């Protein structure tokens, strides 16, 4: 976020430094509310991700920015102007489509030139060729211009789609699940490439994804959605450390959840009672009144395992052990809390050695690391 704050420009009535904004934007398809009163500002130059399961409204939000959907009510702003009624071909944004949507009857170079070709007055041929070459170089496809689309691999097609969008120097680059069709290794490479590209171009990127890892690794801010609404918006670390509710904690990273009733609150700390009558302490993660049903969320890496009993430690038995290289992932069983996931870093195991399945152990965590969250 630091790198954006330095270069704020005012952009009129929808707020300072915003390249785009939704104001109570609602989209209905018949009885289905795909986007429910979205209000959100997109900061100039940031990498924002819409994250959520399918049907959460993230794609609808993106399509309202692109102009493919008109909000049923509310407004969409682009660069300070209300654009709800502006058709896609008059909006200064470009999109990388989920399955690329490259034109099969055109060559790679013609695909990339398509957007420049639509400009009026039309740029000179030589100028278009120059910009196409530059875009090809940017996505490391120099020399591939004369190829046909079907001669390109999936990863190359992805890059052509990217080049076809960025060559127009859009105010916002919209990415609709751009990496979903790629294999794991290629996806990782493209994530890094996208990040680098965004830094170099300084264009605002808005990504739609259902893949939390993708959102966490690339975004400046993530907007978590459910049922057409924004659940929480913040920097990746923010969402990870301070989720507002169980849904966010579950969607961002892995977590152990223990359901219970909030019994007492004192300052930032609280105490819950599980169904089995076990009392557990934690930090208050949201405004909840005593007596409400809550969930205690403990991240796997916050739990420690030891052979010797310590005050406050819970006795568990090791069920399963998965060696992951830098970490070891344990599944341990607690008599009342059920199964817990524990992530132990390599160096913590170096001295004592790992636990074998069937062994008894004591699990402990700092009360600060356990979050008491509203259930929804």
């Amino acid at each position, binding site marked *: 976020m630091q790198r954006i704050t330095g270069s704020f420009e005012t952009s009129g009535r929808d707020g300072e430094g915003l390249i785009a904004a939704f104001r109570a934007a609602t989209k209905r398809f018949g009885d289905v509310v795909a986007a429910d009163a979205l209000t959100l500002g997109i900061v100039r130059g940031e990498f924002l991700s819409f994250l959520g399961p399918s049907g959460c409204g993230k794609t609808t939000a993106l399509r309202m920015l692109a102009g493919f959907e008109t909000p049923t009510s509310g407004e969409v702003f682009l660069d300070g102007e209300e654009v709800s009624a502006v058709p*896609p071909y008059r909006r200064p944004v470009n*999109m990388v489509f989920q399955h690329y*949507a490259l034109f099969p*009857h055109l060559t790679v170079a013609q695909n990339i030139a398509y957007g420049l070709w639509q400009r009026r007055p039309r740029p000179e041929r030589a100028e278009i060729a120059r910009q196409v070459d530059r875009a090809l170089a940017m996505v490391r496809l120099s020399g591939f211009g004369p190829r046909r689309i079907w001669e390109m691999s999936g990863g190359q097609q992805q890059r052509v789609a990217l080049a076809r969008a960025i060559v127009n120097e859009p105010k916002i680059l919209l990415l609709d699940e751009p990496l979903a069709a790629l294999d794991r290794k290629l996806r990782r490479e493209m994530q890094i490439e996208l990040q680098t590209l965004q830094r170099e171009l300084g264009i605002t990127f808005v990504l739609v994804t259902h893949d939390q890892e993708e959102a966490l690794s690339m975004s400046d801010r993530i907007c978590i959605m459910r049922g057409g609404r924004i659940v929480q918006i913040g920097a990746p670390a923010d969402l990870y450390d301070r989720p507002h509710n169980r849904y966010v904690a579950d969607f961002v990273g892995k977590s152990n959840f223990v359901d219970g009733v909030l019994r007492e609150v004192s300052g930032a700390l609280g105490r819950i009672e599980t169904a089995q009558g076990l009392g557990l302490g934690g930090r208050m993660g949201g405004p909840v009144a005593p007596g409400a049903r809550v969930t205690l969320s403990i991240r796997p890496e916050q739990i420690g395992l030891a052979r010797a009993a310590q005050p406050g430690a819970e006795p568990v038995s090791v069920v399963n052990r998965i060696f992951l290289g830098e970490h070891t992932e344990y599944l341990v069983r607690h008599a009342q809390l059920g199964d817990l996931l524990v992530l132990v870093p390599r160096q913590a195991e170096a001295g004592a050695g790992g636990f074998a399945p069937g062994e008894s152990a004591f699990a402990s965590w700092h009360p600060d690391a356990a979050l008491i969250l509203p259930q929804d």
Partner: protein
Amino acid sequence: MQRRLATSVLLAPAGLWFAVMLVLPLCFVLVFSLGERGAAGGYVPAFTFEQYANLPARGQAFLNTLILAPVGTLLALLIAYPLAYHLAQGVGPKWRTMLLILVIVPFWTSILIRSYAWIFLLGGQGVPALIEWMGFGAVRLINTRFAVLTGIVYGYLPLMVLPIYVSLERLDRRLLEASADLGAPPLRSFLQVALPLSLPGVATGCMLVFILLMGEFLIPAMLGGGKVFFIGNALVDLFLQSRNWAFGAAVAVTLVAIMLGTVTFYLMLMRRLGGARGNVDLI
């Protein structure tokens, strides 16, 4: 080796059929076209190009065919394309099936009966009467080129609609969205994306209709009333009435040559449109 044997065995029936029913008759026609008419009609062996030199005698039939077949094809295309586009991109799946069936329904009735219907529609008691009643004066429609054109466009429209529909139905809507996203207004998106991608269907539809129109004789006979002759009518006349087989054969060979030229042109066009992918619709 065994595979080649199996292929030959499997292809034998079709090959034999084509050899006996197509190639052999064509050879006969070719030989006949170089012969002479007997005194009482029929064929007398000879080797002369006289029949070909005589072709201008049937020039009107050639002229009618070579004008009305392309014009009919073009008209059918102009009517079929918007219809196919609407069917493929503009209506929901439920309506689409029903409308497609409606396109095909005319085929359930013989073209003979449907042409009779047109005789009444275009005849004195039909549309001309209506036009006269509305005060636009007397017009004559039946037994004109206009009537024949109406008949052939009506008769062959479904053959044009279906291949175009297939190619447009396959068109990914996201391509049109991508085009709009890149700054092309709807009309330009259509011209630059939808139209080029549907050209294989257009070529196939034009080919089907054009080839069949070149050989058409029923519709001109019925709606042209012996005044608008096609090559097909000339052939019927030469073989069955005048019994001038040699001249008839020469006319037939010329017709086949024109069609071969057209099909060759079509295949070359398809190769260019389909690129190296070889996605040729319906043919």
